């Protein structure tokens, strides 16, 4: 399979000289076309930073990020979903979803159509004319997902998108995300601190060690998704990743 994201010896650091803070060093990860990859790690390990470097919001210090998807002026190749939905409160829901369509080659009719269809896809078809403050946290996060899907990206970067939601909403949105992923065949890189969520969603789980972060381990999840909410195989996998995380923490303590 073709790799859509590939980092090559990627390092990111903030500041210079003695005060320099190295977030990660020589990191090599990749995501294949249509793959759902989840990224877990100890907090502060630079998971969010990695997504931002891939999204070209932060420049790499060394190394590079290769994005291999077709160029298309009517789409954006990468879209991001943030931890808190971060909707613009002065835009109605429809205009929030259309944010990324401004500035690409989409006619106003196509723009309206894409906003409508992505809002339908996340189950908020009737909410186009509401203000963000009129929505619940879960609904806002759905709008955040619709906003990312509206630009029809090949790659979806998700930064703990369900972290701030209550458990019931989270479960509903996880299943909805999987449905959308199956329907749209996007490549997804999903950051979370919740190991069960990582194992539930991912084709592959990457475990990121502490600063400077590096890939400590990689877990292939070869359990059918219908078998994943519970059951022995699922729980065993969760335990395995958990144990890996504990090891990673012990390692980083030892280093410090």
């Amino acid at each position: 399979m073709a790799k859509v994201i590939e980092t090559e010896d990627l390092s990111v650091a903030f500041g210079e000289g003695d005060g320099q803070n190295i977030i990660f060093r020589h990191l090599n990860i990749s995501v294949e076309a249509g793959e759902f990859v989840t990224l877990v790690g100890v907090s502060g390990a630079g998971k969010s930073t990695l997504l931002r470097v891939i999204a070209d919001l932060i420049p790499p210090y060394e190394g590079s990020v290769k994005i291999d998807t077709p160029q298309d002026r009517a789409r954006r190749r990468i879209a991001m979903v943030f931890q808190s939905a971060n909707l613009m409160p002065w835009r109605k829901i429809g205009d929030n979803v259309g944010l990324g369509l401004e500035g690409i080659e989409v006619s106003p009719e196509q723009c309206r159509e894409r906003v409508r269809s992505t809002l339908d896809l996340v189950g908020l078809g009737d909410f186009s004319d509401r203000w963000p403050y009129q929505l619940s946290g879960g609904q806002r996060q759905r709008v955040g997902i619709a906003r990312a899907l509206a630009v029809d990206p090949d790659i979806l970067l998700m930064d703990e998108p369900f972290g701030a939601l209550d458990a019931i909403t989270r479960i509903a949105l996880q299943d909805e995300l999987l449905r959308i992923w199956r329907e749209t065949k996007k490549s997804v890189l999903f950051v979370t601190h919740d190991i069960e969520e990582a194992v539930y969603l991912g084709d592959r789980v990457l475990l990121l060690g502490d600063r400077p972060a590096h890939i400590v381990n990689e877990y292939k999840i070869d359990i059918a998704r219908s078998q994943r909410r519970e059951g022995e195989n699922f729980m065993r996998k969760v335990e395995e990743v958990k144990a890996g995380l504990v090891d990673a923490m012990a390692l980083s303590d030892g280093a410090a």
Partner: protein
Amino acid sequence: MNTAHRYALSVTGLVGFLVFWEAISQSGWISTTLLPPPSSIAPSLVSEIQEGIWHWMVWASFRHYAIGFFIGSFLGVTLGVLVALFPKVEASQAWLARVLRPIPPLAWIPFAIIWFGISETAAAFIISIGIFWINYFTAMAAVQAVDKDLIEVARAFGHRTFPALLKKVILPGAAPGILSGLRAGLGQGWMTVVAAELFGIEGIGQRMMEASGLLATDVVILYMFSIALLYGISDYIFVSIQNKILAWQR
């Protein structure tokens, strides 16, 4: 407390104040020259209008006010936004603003007269100063308080140039703060109008000085209320526009 209840209490407060004042004036404890009763305002208004003075003075003051308001607001908001956007500009103005800020608008009167003569420009200049500072600082603070996460969102969705970020995030995000600064300036402006006209520029202030020289205190009170009315109308219009612009707020 519902809206009707609140409204009733507000009316009661104002009417109660006027009745109390009328009673004191009528009681004869205090000479009506020292404290003219509110009931004298209507006759004064009629005579001032008949002589063609009231609307002439109000219109003159409104001109000074409007020009001062627009100039002060425009410069204050523009410079405040620029200062907030560029850290170097921010640093270079920090002490300068501290030196100039505490000088009251009225202290500029001598220079206003030297620079512009006894003219409408001089009055507008003085009025604009107070309005400028209010808008300068509120606009600066409003831009600095714009949610950085939203700037990141806009960048992530392809809006990476400075004009695009200004239009899509910074100005809408700062709008509530900027509008509240404009509104504060709207009130501050009327407070300086009278003083700016005291040195002989035609307007409400000048008429009040004349009237107090003649001990026509009922005329003074009439113009005090005229200013209150003008402020009330301008503030009401402003707030209705503001509510339209900020409909997205709770």
